[in-house]
């Protein structure tokens, strides 16, 4: 169990979570990035940049 860095809500990570993965906090809706797995660290996901896309 991890904690949302924005609202403090509880976040459960999937077993196959990877570094860099985007998550959405179920409580506040913030988009988060998994920045570390050991220990688990979550940060607010970066804002979209001009050359982002597909």
């Amino acid at each position: 169990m991890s904690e949302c860095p924005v609202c403090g809500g509880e976040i459960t990570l999937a077993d196959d979570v990877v570094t860099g993965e985007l998550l959405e906090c179920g409580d506040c809706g913030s988009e988060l990035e998994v920045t570390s797995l050991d220990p688990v660290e979550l940060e607010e996901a970066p804002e979209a940049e001009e050359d982002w896309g597909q």
Partner: protein
Amino acid sequence: MGSITVGFLHSLVRREEKLLIGEFNQRRNVNLVLIDDRRLCFDLKHRPEVDVIVERSINHSRALHALRLYQGLGIPCVNSYDVSLTCGDKILTAAALQDHGVAQPDLRIAFTIESALKAIEELGYPVVLKPAVGSWGRLLSRVNDRDAAETILEHKAVLGSYHHSIFFIQKYIDKRGRDIRAFVVGNDCIAAIYRSSTHWITNTARGATASCCPVTPELGELCLSAAKAVGGGVLAIDLFESTDGFLVNEVNYTMEFRNSIDTTGIHIPGKVVDHVLSCTNG
């Protein structure tokens, strides 16, 4: 069969990357190496121990340069640097489609406000102004009259970086509430969806809804022609259904497909992984 080491170039891991990672990890004889472009420090003389690179970076500029460097070391890349260069720039895409006789909306490219205004009036209102590099329907402008044209061109020239003064102007196509996204993997057009919206921008990133679109022989052949025009690989082709037939609007090279697996019933990650594994030098 020997083991294949796949370098998976990424930054943020979105739903598509997660699906692809899961698919690679299910394959026997595949060793998946995750390469976060934010931690990459490239040595031009050092060849990483990978047999193929699959590019899934969210930043076009990082993807483009990394692909050039990996290819320079003799590593096959999906998609290739040339494909990424062409598809990452709408002007280069339009030129490639034109070179190969692929139908697309009428368009103009201009480099000054004055010549852009002239080009817009030549095409006739409405037109759509697009950044040459950009995605997800961001900063698209539908220009309905000369007042709007003058204002938008001035804003782009004054407030934007120099990229925004390279004006890509496309004739507005009345798409009657939907367009088509088709997926090409290698030599096959594997699936397509309609993207429907009450807004004139029909990107799913902007709220359009997806439904299954049959891949007719006509649609499939045009998509393969568009894919061939930009160099081929794993591509998402966006098309309009005009009164003159299908028109290719854009070709995307780091395609998003999260809304299209259940919609089409096609296991897109599996098709992509099959293609990537077929691209190794061995």
